[in-house]
């Protein structure tokens, strides 16, 4: 499913935690977009699984923090890669 890139300033990435498998494909593809390298610590997305409560947490880095690049809404790409790659359509833009 291709997702058009939003130019809306209110771009916020959301997750349906029940759909998310925790595969980190979105995290890794984001790292690749920014650097052509693979490192979750470069990504503008963080997914953390909490096994005690069987939950998934998403953190969307809109500004640079530590090694994490700020989300640039996939500038230069044809699609929003994280949303596009998700095998369960768990990510969406609000």
């Amino acid at each position, binding site marked *: 499913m291709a997702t058009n890139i939003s130019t809306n300033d209110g771009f916020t990435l959301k997750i349906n935690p029940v759909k998310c*498998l925790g*595969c980190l494909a979105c995290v890794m593809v984001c790292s690749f977009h920014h650097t052509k390298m*693979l490192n979750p610590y470069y990504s503008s997305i963080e997914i953390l*699984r909490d096994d005690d409560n*069987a939950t998934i947490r998403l953190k969307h880095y809109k500004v640079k923090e530590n090694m994490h690049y700020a989300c640039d809404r996939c500038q230069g790409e044809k699609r929003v890669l994280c949303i596009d790659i998700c095998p369960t359509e768990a990510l969406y833009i609000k």
Partner: protein
Amino acid sequence: MTKNSYAGKIAFINLSNNKIKFELTEKYTRKFIGGRGINLWLLYNYSKIEYHPLHRNSPIIFGTGPLTGTLAPGSGRLDIAAKNYYTKGIGYSNACGYFAPELKRAGFDHVMIYGKAEKPVYIKIINGLIEIHPADDIWGLTTWETEKYIKHENKDPYLQVLSIGPAGERLVKGACIIINRDCAAGHCGLGAVMGSKNLKAIAVKGENPIELSNPDKFYRYFEEIWAKITSKSKVTNVIKKLGSLMYFSSTAEAPVRNNQDAYLNQFKVVLPQKFIKEKGFMGIGYYMCPISCRHYFKTKYGILKGPKTNGLHDFVSRLEIYDIDDVIKLNALCNKVGLDIDFTSNVIAWSIEAYEKGLLTVKDFDGLKPEWGNSDFVERMIYKIVNLEGIGKVLAKGVKSAARIINKGSSKFAMHIKGHDLYEAFRTRIAYGLGAATAPRGGGHLDGSPLCEFPKLWTKEDCIRIYGIENCNDGLTYNGKAEIVFYHERLKYVIDSIGICYFFTIWGAPDYPTLDDYCNLLNAAVGSKYTPSDLLFIGERILNVAKAYNTLHAGFKRKDDYPPQRFLSEPIKSGPYKGTKLSKRKWDRLLDKYYTIHGWDAKTGLQKKEKLFELGLESVALDLMKHKKLIM
């Protein structure tokens, strides 16, 4: 140095003196790629014949492959090798989770651990720095508690942890290594090998990026492969919901009541589609895994991660426990205490049958009454095994040894291959069975066994397209099966060496990515010029290293490549395959063919000089020659 997706280094940690050495990975990559290939070559070279698997200097090796931690599907698998606790031959197993990519980003493709710590320790590897920490406080804890404790003690939720439970500490033969609570490296007693070194856990964190030789090319190949799995496969929708559970079907042979039968007549009670819908609420896919082999379930015992296909066969088929909540609980209990579920259900099923046949009494079970379908009994037996209590102490040695101890003819129904407890049922699936019977590590369907003998998923056209063999989906035919197994043996060693999940190949589904696809991806990642044939050649080389290790360390020969007696002598009692058993005469001929196409000696099953030289394994040939185990 040109950019590539290797971390570049191998660490050798001696727990006896806390000394650490390093080597460059590139010393081994040309001949063995990475992952399982390099693991087994290191094991071959550092493990002495006179070492017991639990000898202090017997190494255990953790390895990643060149595609580990990249975008490749299923590239989160960690490969582990050590001398096999069951067989004294080659031992290896792998597990998914998030550990392997973290290890690679921490700077290491492989970590070999040898020696023995004086007191319990855990190893911490962070961004290239290796530290050895006391583990007195966590010795005795479950794998779940251990992971939590280490993350808490280090105040770092991003640490990835692999650990052993009490089963590994007490050297139970079926002790496994657990990652992320339910990813198990179950085969070969690797948990006990860690336990014998007083090594409770390894925690890793890596913030270094993984580079690619040709990122743009890599991404193009990745997109094609990802689409094949997530949207183009004809079984995508089923797989997305069920993962490997789709192979738990009414037409599949099952190890019912310790393989006394092979047909689960109450199959519909535990239909994966049904119980996932009713109780599952979240699929789980670990690193770069777009399918859900397991789910979180809401059970009467709380929220727990559920089993994969073998969990269902182990507890439902083998022990006839039909309450899915109980199955999920027992599966989780084994993961907590660090017990391989295949081993656990096998030894318990054997003990129930021994009781049924009057060879054991209620007194032997300390007053417990063994019976099929009784989950309370199974739970108490799990504790007895882990605590080495009563009959549990006997079962903890594995079914082959347990049958020898109890004797009274109980070996006849002790299900093992080469001394390793057996999961696979194969009176109606010849290729699947041949793969398990000849697997160097002793049983297991993750060596040469294909899944093509599931006619619902594999059509005639698939058989011809992939293997060039008509009717490969007919489980009962012996024709062409040796060739299919030979292909899968090599393919599996390649897949485990490049560092991805086997399920995402044509093994998992006929229209999944091929070796050609992964060859392209690998070349773009490491800048190599492999062809698929080159990779299969390397796969064959690794297989021959494993085979030679078995010959030298365990003395295995042709006689060790036969199925358990039960499959040859007792026909299936009910269901669509009623009356079916394996034919000794046909198996003999199948083995002749199998050895011949491998370039091995059909009479003895031993390797030939010519083949080893062709594969560039002259030193291995020399070792075998010294021990008079090479056919000239």
